[in-house]
């Protein structure tokens, strides 16, 4: 099969080479595809195709392989579909006599080698799909899907259902049947993770973390508050009405450095002084908005605070 034809569509189909009528029917239905009987043949086929992709017009300079691979990965539009029967009670996909089992060190070595040589990014592949009946139907099958995703750095999918020739068309696995697939990112997602506390957060001054002012570049003018000014500012805040706001955080107008024991905490004045955004979980976590009871009074206090020198 000519390489350009194999890389012409959104799916690169690799079918298990074995004397099986159903697999042969699938290969005929797909048209351009690769047939392999084991790991060596798969490696050889993908390496040859990657080399062809490198030589194709517009391909990145081989001398900058890693950068090129990353660039290619960003523009990846193709899936690598491994198509075969599943064998054993663990429903592991087979290509020839090779069972793709991530618990098998030899199998891991095959995929690690592909990852180290950036073969999938060079081929523009953003997902690997293990297309065999119930390839995600067992704990071991799902573990293989997740381990391969971690190893290759791409999405990996399998299925909990039966697959057959009717799921394929010219060019590969038909998109209208993609609902049958389950992805590693879904399998790994923790269920029912709460996104926030059920009620409003209460501002506890003693629990605010100290933040090194020099380590944080203010995104707006910074004012240094005295302990007295800090007490006056926090007296304006409705301390039992803290909550996050979804979406992009509103830009701060002023950054306040509030003195705490042994350091400072940062507070951002947002939404015309209607809110102070504090960071009780640290600056790396989303800030919590607390409403300000008297924005005009807040502005008057801020007007009397000294400006901090620009650390930049």
């Amino acid at each position, binding site marked *: 099969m000519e390489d350009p034809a194999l890389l012409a569509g959104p799916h690169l189909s690799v079918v298990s080479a074995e004397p099986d009528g159903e697999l042969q029917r699938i290969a005929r239905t797909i048209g351009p595809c690769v047939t392999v009987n084991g790991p060596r043949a798969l490696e050889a086929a993908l390496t040859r195709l990657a080399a062809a992709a490198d030589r194709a017009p517009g391909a990145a300079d081989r001398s900058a392989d890693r950068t090129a691979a990353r660039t290619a990965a960003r523009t990846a539009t193709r899936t690598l579909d491994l198509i075969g029967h599943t064998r054993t009670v663990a429903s592991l996909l087979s290509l020839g006599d090779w069972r793709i089992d991530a618990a098998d060190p030899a199998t891991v070595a095959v995929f690690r080698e592909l990852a180290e040589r950036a073969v999938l990014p060079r081929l523009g592949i953003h997902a690997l799909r293990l297309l065999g009946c119930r390839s995600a139907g067992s704990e071991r099958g799902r573990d293989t899907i997740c381990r391969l995703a971690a190893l290759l750095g791409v999405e990996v999918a399998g299925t909990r*259902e*039966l697959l057959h020739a*009717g*799921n394929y068309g010219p060019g590969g696995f038909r998109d*209208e*049947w*993609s*609902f*049958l697939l389950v992805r590693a990112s*879904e399998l790994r*997602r923790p*269920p*029912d*993770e*709460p*996104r*926030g*506390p*059920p*009620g*409003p*957060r209460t501002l506890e001054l003693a629990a605010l973390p100290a933040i090194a002012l020099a380590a944080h570049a203010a995104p707006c003018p910074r004012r240094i508050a005295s302990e007295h000014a800090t007490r006056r500012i926090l007296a304006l805040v*409705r301390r039992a*009405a803290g*909550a*996050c*706001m*979804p*979406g992009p955080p509103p830009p701060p107008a002023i950054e306040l450095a509030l003195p705490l024991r042994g350091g400072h905490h940062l507070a951002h004045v947002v*939404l*015309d002084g*209607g*809110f102070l955004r504090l960071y009780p979980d640290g600056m790396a976590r989303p800030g919590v*908005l607390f*409403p*300000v009871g008297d924005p005009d009074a807040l502005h008057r206090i801020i007007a009397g605070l000294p400006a901090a020198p620009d650390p930049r």
Partner: protein
Amino acid sequence: MSKVTFYGLPAWVGAIHGPTACEWWDHDPAQLSWDRSRLHPLDLAKTVSAALAGQISVAQVEVDDHATKGGRTTIGPRWPGGATIGAVWVSESYLQANQLTAPSHEFQLIQYFDGEQQNRRFYGFQASVLQTQNQLSLVQLWHPGTGATAAPPAGTWWLDLSASADPSTPPPGAGQPAPLYLDAKAASQLVTVDPKIPTYVGTLPFPSAPPGA
């Protein structure tokens, strides 16, 4: 302005007539003595995304897209291979034509097709507005389907309801839990699970991107 309200109902598929054509019961058929006269015909191809793509008219829409396409329906979406027990989110006209009972607001969504709200959708929630400050409201939300139970709220957030709530339905008043229809994009940042339909199924992740997004 075209808008359609969808209602989430439990579905047991009782007959399959084609890749997307089926008949379904809205109750466990074992409790209906497998009464085939109570089956409802449905074409799972008559979806929101089909209307947005211009393949059918808005008036022809019967059902929301499948969960794998950003919708909330979980039966099908094609056979063989599609699910036969799950949720079906049917349009208001379909609901009325089939004399089905509308579930509460937590099992409703509103889809706009054109006009100012073009291709926006809003999901029904149980919510309580605790207080307001300027244009923001401090809103306590329940995961969809849990607002009428003893479950704790999913969380509390400051929200700009003028930007993120359905303009055609009144926002909740202060203090009392009430219906709130929230924009899909905002809602997907707040809650994590979809309603359990039928009630005995496990929870599904909340849709991250609606059909046509």
